[in-house]
């Protein structure tokens, strides 16, 4: 269980995390979603006691991180892929880490087996690929068999096989009753792994919801209908109280109606239809809409292209 109350982080006059409240509960994967620079990593570092909050507080199992009697037995974290000295072997990295919290040597071999690094455990980690480094980081997180796990952008830079492996791992950790907190800037990733969703933008929580609710609310479909008598059809549909928008090619986009209802309206007026289809909005779009105001750095794609280019 992770609890943040009015958690704040300021750098000079810039507020990176602005008095956020949230709770991450056991037995579920809580996705921490937000664009780059929204404050995800800063928040996670404050949970781990690495960065000091400018205000408010955050606790793990009811205690500030620094007050945990044996931190690795309670919290495991993958904060960045390369928080490892490249000159040390994977085994020795896990060994010193185990020693801090009195974790036995055999557990080091155990976690190496779990993440499948047996073949390279005695090699220096400087030569590891990103995926191998990520596995080593996960081995370190699992070392103390903790009940709370944090993963900051765990699938970044991984190949499809590695991504699937991490997704399954995250799901199974939550299924075992652990508290799992995973950050990502990809909605599609969250939709696959998270049970609960915490959306952050510009340092504030803009959504705190069940994943299924979020999907139900935001993947609402609309119907696309094209007719040679578009104007008349639009008039008829508006009379029924449905919202109409025009697509680029002149087709009508109807919210709140089913294709059957629209077909019936057209039929009763004797209007011809050339197209009638359901279009579902993607979650990615829903996320973009939600965070549109809070994206730190917009790519300017609407710049006029100079003539002759």
């Amino acid at each position: 269980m992770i609890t943040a109350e009015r958690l704040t982080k300021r750098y000079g006059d810039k507020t990176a995390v602005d008095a956020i409240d949230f709770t991450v509960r056991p037995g579920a994967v809580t996705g921490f979603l937000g664009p780059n620079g929204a404050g995800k990593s800063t928040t996670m570092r404050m949970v781990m006691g690495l960065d000091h909050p400018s205000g408010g507080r955050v606790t793990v199992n009811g205690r500030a991180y620094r007050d945990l009697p044996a931190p690795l037995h309670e919290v495991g974290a993958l904060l960045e892929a390369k928080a490892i000295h490249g000159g040390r072997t994977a085994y020795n990295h896990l060994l010193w880490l185990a020693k801090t919290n009195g974790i036995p040597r055999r557990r080091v071999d155990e976690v190496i087996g779990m993440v499948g690094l047996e073949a390279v455990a005695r090699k220096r980690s400087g030569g590891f690929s990103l995926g191998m480094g990520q596995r080593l980081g996960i081995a370190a997180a699992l070392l103390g068999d903790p009940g709370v796990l944090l993963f900051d952008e765990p699938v970044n830079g991984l190949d499809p096989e590695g991504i699937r492996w991490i997704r399954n791992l995250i799901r199974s950790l939550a299924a075992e009753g652990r508290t799992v907190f995973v950050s990502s800037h990809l909605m599609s990733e969250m939709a696959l792994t998270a049970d609960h969703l915490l959306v952050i933008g510009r340092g504030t929580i803009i959504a705190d919801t069940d994943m299924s609710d979020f999907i139900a609310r935001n993947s609402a479909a609309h119907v696309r209908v094209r007719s040679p008598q578009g104007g008349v059809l639009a008039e008829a549909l508006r009379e029924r109280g449905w919202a109409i928008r025009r697509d680029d090619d002149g087709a009508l986009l109807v919210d709140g109606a089913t294709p059957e209802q629209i077909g019936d309206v057209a039929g009763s007026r004797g209007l011809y239809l050339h197209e009638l289809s359901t279009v579902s909005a993607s979650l990615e779009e829903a996320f973009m809409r939600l965070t549109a105001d809070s994206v730190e750095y917009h790519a300017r794609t609407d710049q006029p292209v100079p003539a002759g280019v």
Partner: protein
Amino acid sequence: MTTSSTLTPPASPPVARHDGSGGARLTFGRILDAEWTKIRTVRSTVWTLTSLFVLSVGLTALICFAAAGELAGEAADEPIGAFATWGLMFGQIAALVLGILVATSEYSSGMIRTTLAAAPRRWSVLAAKTTVITTLLLVLGAITSTVAILAGNFFLDREGIGLTLSDPDVLRTMVGGGLYLAVLGVFGLGLGLLLRHTAGAVTVGIALIFVVGNLVGLIPGAAGEWLTKLMPGNAGTTMATVESFNPDLLGPWTGIGVFAGEAALLLLIAGWLFKRRDA
């Protein structure tokens, strides 16, 4: 080298889960054990300690071999004892660098976050690092200065100007080399933790000890004299030499006391910032 490791099924760690109330707790002894494991499992430790030994012993032997004849001549008024650990002047850089690396290698790799996640008590982490570097350099420094004296004295002896090994100053220097290098290592640790950057800390460290220590001598009058005595590089060195080239420096015990005080102050400032700053 195998790039891909076998994919195992999703990890299912043993179900028995600790919630911190179990037997395993974070203790200073465990943090110390971890820091010792860290320092002995990277190559840079082996390299710096090897160069400490080789430079100190090798250069001492070399200068004694080259200068013994002249020193034995009647015209020479150089303090012979100053040559017996001459190589330490260069070997000491390795001790400084090792101390710096104990702190900065964690920042250059980002490993400091792993360290502090495992052991969030920052003063304990710093105390463990200090203990490890002090012990290591105390032992290796004493061995190095003893071997350097024996090697240098071999050549001095051939010219009939050898030191008496049972002389109190010679015995003091054998241990004193270890003391000086240990304090220098701690000085490096403080500097590294303060600056969090290897190249920066090495540059500042070497400048303080080799350059500024000599430059302040140019300041006229008593101020310059005292600054020379008190500069970190100067204050400690008399402890590591049988006789000093510069008779104006502080005595060995006073000198090492001043140097240890300076290193401790630096370490405290660095520790205070370490506690306050974001990792």
